[in-house]
């Protein structure tokens, strides 16, 4: 991702717009941009930075403060253009002139310094100066985003002053010296537009000045494992945070593999935030524990609080939601998903004060008790900015129609129950309400939908990009009639009741599809039944792949699969980044050949070179893991269950996948040798989970001793066996061992 910031004081260009991955349309053609000689020594023409500079890892040049221009061309080649910053860095790249107060500043995705190619190249050469010529399209094609910062007089003045100062001192400067090209405020100002966490991390590694500028200007922080860092460390480094995202328990806690009261309680964080981030606005938690007391504390401690998102969390009840509703005056987002929430009743919704009207996002789809419809309707009516509304099952069709009438500008809608018996006139009103929702791009809910009423949503589907039917029991005929109404669909979630025939309809109707998730309607049903059975097979998978060549994300639950089918699927769709196949019976072989499913996943990793996430299933030997280690060089997340033959399997992965960050394993014959094979790897990973494997506690102790910056935890519920490590959780941390571990968690 590259950003080109142009400060254009004299433009009629619009005020700055936030960076995004979609190139914004240019307001006007870009004038030739002459870049300022803030960088000393920018004098030589020619090919730019020399090869010598490219061998220097950027972090080993502590005072390096030149700004490096990189262009990422399609195909991934990066070419570097040094703006200067010291002739010894690279000899400069030419003359930079300044026109008005224009300034160009670019970054590259810094994640992989080894990929930097310092090879200057002129993009345009007018009047002997380096310039960036052409319209925004020109740059867009070359991966440069153009942002205009608009009129900012103070910033201009700062630049001009810095430039003059630099010009004066140029002679005095030693050849070895380097001047900081920017005053700090400028850098911070510009850094505000760098939003990606990875980019910001990389920026902070460039040099001390950039580190400081980054930490002062950062307002958002993402912590993938709440125990990897402590609240104190966080607030010490970042003083101005307004948005915190925290993830807690290991992912397998979603499937009841982590005992209750394991930890990941938010309260200590909130207490720290209350004193250092009084302006905290957003809190997004996943798999954390949060009590009603904490919610109450949150509501009272942060007057500007705007957004609360709780996904797969537990520990609270609807009383906590009532605190939020009644006390957060500026709340814009309340998003409660899939939580272990104690639902004591729907009166929390009525706690929003009568004058409260700032809500933009409201999602209570997974709550089970009924809210007061009257209160809901009034809330929706007065929150004019509401764009996301996801109600729960108790809201009827008739009620939904009333809500839609009040909020036709919704972009995301989660319906309630769709099964009410409707008089024709009422049905027409529902259909009408849906047809007024022209901005809808996401639709979900649809509990208990019947074929009769499904057509009511057709008019709203015209601009849908995400359709979540995973709570709707639909048959293939329903789906086949629905999908042609959704030509722009990119993400589709369905239940396997649609069967292979339904997936054929997906293949033929959803040409733009990028993501498909097929969930099992009856996951525990193992009896063999024929007809009317629901369930998808390898045929459905192939059918989708034949029609949807843009597929990059699949989650597929099935009861039978073949190696050949998977090979066909990835041949048709080689661009998978996320491939999660769940053959629901453990150890199930290819049902046609009775071979293990090794070749299936072999074909996945060989063909899908961009694969980031993989979940394997079926009967698998070590061969699967050998394939993964050999080919899956971009793999970041791997989930393994009931697979493998020996320690070698896990070793292949640890040795072969350089980008691995999360490894979760259950019920596999991997033992101590496998665990310890990853000794050197775990610090570059977020975490490792191993349960029901063959690891002993002593091996865990050894690992903990050898790698002090890892937290090695063993969950032990079975008192009888002293040596077996039932569940092992290993993660890197700068905060040291947990101090809040419950008795069944051994922190080694």
């Amino acid at each position, binding site marked *: 991702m590259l950003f080109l910031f142009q400060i254009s004081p004299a433009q009629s260009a619009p005020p700055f717009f936030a960076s995004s991955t979609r190139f914004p349309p240019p307001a006007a053609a870009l004038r030739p941009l002459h870049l300022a000689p803030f960088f000393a020594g920018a004098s030589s023409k020619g090919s730019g930075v020399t090869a010598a500079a490219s061998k220097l890892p950027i972090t080993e040049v502590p005072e390096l403060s030149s700004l490096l221009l990189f262009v990422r061309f399609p195909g991934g080649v990066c070419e570097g253009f040094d703006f200067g910053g010291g002739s010894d860095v690279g000899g400069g790249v030419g003359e930079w002139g300044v026109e008005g107060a224009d300034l160009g500043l670019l970054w590259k995705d810094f994640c992989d310094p080894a990929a930097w190619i310092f090879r200057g190249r002129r993009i345009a050469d007018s009047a002997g100066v380096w310039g960036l010529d052409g319209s925004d399209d020109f740059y867009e094609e070359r991966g440069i985003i153009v942002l205009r910062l608009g009129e900012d007089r103070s910033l201009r003045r700062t630049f001009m002053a810095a430039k003059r100062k630099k010009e004066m001192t140029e002679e005095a400067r030693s050849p070895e010296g380097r001047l900081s090209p920017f005053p700090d405020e400028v850098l911070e100002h510009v850094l505000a537009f760098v939003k990606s966490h990875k980019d910001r991390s990389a920026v902070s590694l460039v040099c001390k000045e950039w580190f400081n500028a980054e930490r002062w200007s950062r307002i958002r922080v993402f912590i993938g494992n709440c125990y990897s860092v402590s609240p104190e460390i966080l607030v010490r480094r970042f003083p101005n945070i307004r948005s915190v995202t925290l993830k807690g328990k290991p992912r397998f806690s979603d499937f009841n593999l982590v005992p209750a009261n394991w930890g990941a309680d938010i309260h200590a964080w909130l207490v720290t935030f209350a004193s250092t981030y009084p302006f905290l606005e957003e809190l997004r938690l996943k798999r954390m524990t949060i009590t009603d007391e904490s919610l109450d504390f949150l509501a009272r401690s942060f007057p500007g609080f705007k957004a609360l998102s709780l996904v797969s969390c537990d520990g609270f009840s609807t009383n906590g939601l009532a605190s939020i509703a009644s006390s957060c005056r500026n709340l814009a987002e309340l998003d409660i998903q899939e939580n272990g929430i104690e639902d004591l009743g729907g009166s929390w919704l009525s706690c929003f004060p009568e004058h409260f009207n700032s809500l933009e996002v409201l999602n209570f789809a997974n709550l089970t008790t009924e809210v007061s419809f009257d209160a809901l309707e009034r809330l929706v009516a007065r929150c004019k900015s509401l764009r996301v509304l996801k109600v729960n099952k108790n809201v009827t069709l008739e009620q939904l129609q009333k809500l839609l009438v009040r909020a036709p500008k919704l972009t995301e809608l989660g319906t309630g129950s769709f099964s009410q018996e409707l008089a024709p006139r009422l049905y027409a009103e529902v259909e009408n309400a849906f047809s007024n929702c022209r901005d809808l791009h996401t639709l979900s809910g649809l509990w208990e939908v019947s074929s009769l009423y499904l057509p009511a949503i057709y008019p709203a589907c015209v601009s849908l990009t995400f359709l979540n039917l995973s709570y709707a029991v639909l048959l293939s005929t329903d789906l086949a009639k629905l999908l042609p109404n959704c030509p722009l669909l990119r993400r589709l979630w369905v239940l396997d009741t649609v069967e292979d025939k339904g997936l054929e309809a997906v293949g033929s109707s959803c040409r733009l599809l990028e993501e498909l998730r097929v969930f099992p309607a009856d996951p525990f049903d193992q009896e*063999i039944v024929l007809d*009317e059975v629901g369930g998808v097979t390898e045929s459905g998978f192939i059918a989708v792949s034949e029609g949807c060549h843009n597929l990059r994300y699949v989650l597929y639950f099935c009861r039978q699969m073949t190696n050949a089918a998977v090979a066909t699927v990835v041949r048709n769709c080689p661009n998978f980044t996320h491939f999660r196949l769940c053959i629901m019976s453990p150890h199930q*072989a290819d*049902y046609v050949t009775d071979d293990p499913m090794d070749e299936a996943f072999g074909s996945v990793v060989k063909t899908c070179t961009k694969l980031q996430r993989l979940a394997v299933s079926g009967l698998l030997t070590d061969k699967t893991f050998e394939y993964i280690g050999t080919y899956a060089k971009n793999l970041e997340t791997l989930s393994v269950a009931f697979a493998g033959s020996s320690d070698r399997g896990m070793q292949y992965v640890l040795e072969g996948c350089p980008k691995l960050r999360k490894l979760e394993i259950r019920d596999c014959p991997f033992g101590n040798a496998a665990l310890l094979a990853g000794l050197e790897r775990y610090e570059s990973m977020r975490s490792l989970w191993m349960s*029901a494997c063959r690891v002993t506690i002593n091996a865990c102790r050894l690992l903990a001793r050898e790698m002090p910056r890892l937290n090695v935890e063993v969950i032990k519920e079975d008192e009888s066996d002293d040596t077996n490590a039932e569940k092992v959780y290993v993660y890197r941390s700068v905060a040291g061992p947990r101090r809040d571990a419950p008795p069944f968690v051994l922190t080694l």
Partner: protein
Amino acid sequence: MAMELELGLALPSVNFPSKGLGLDLNGEASPMIAAVPKKKRSVADAFAGDNTTDTATLPLFVWDFADDGNNNKSAYSCSLEAFCDLLISDDDNGGSRSTAPVGWPPVKPARLKAAGGTRYVKVKMEGVAIGRKVDLSLHRSYATLLDAVDRLFTRNHHVEAAGDLTLGEDGASLPTSHFRTFTYQDVDGDWMLLGDVPWETFVKSAKRLKIHSSKE
């Protein structure tokens, strides 16, 4: 031994891939390593009683038994389900819902609760190994349901048609040649006679159907 029984009663179907699973009591099975957690018993323990989990020969079937507390054990291995049905009496122990490993398949609880709106129920006819499934939401009354069920079995299992199927007061059909008793298991696990409650109530509470046939 087991194979013959299975072939005899099973329909030819891709759902029976038993041939490749190394059903050899003595020799090696195909490379399947049963990652059998300590607490769970292999089928060998359950049936032969004299195998341990770490013998050189692999267990006969690759599956795990979970004791659900009621001493009900049935295999979760889909591929051997029918065989298992023959071994274990079909005593309506609630099916195999309770015997999958913890947290498997990996479906989030919220999703399970919500998708419980499925109206598919299994239908088993006494004496027929293969169960069927019907979608109750496609029917509006007992009459259409019974009709559909009857057609399912007669069409595929060469079961004699029951003729005129109407429910008597006691829930038993009144066919011309066969008595069939239709029962269903409700949410509480109790077996009830079909027809006792209004249709809507039945649809909401029925979990599975069973057809008992007894000749007149």
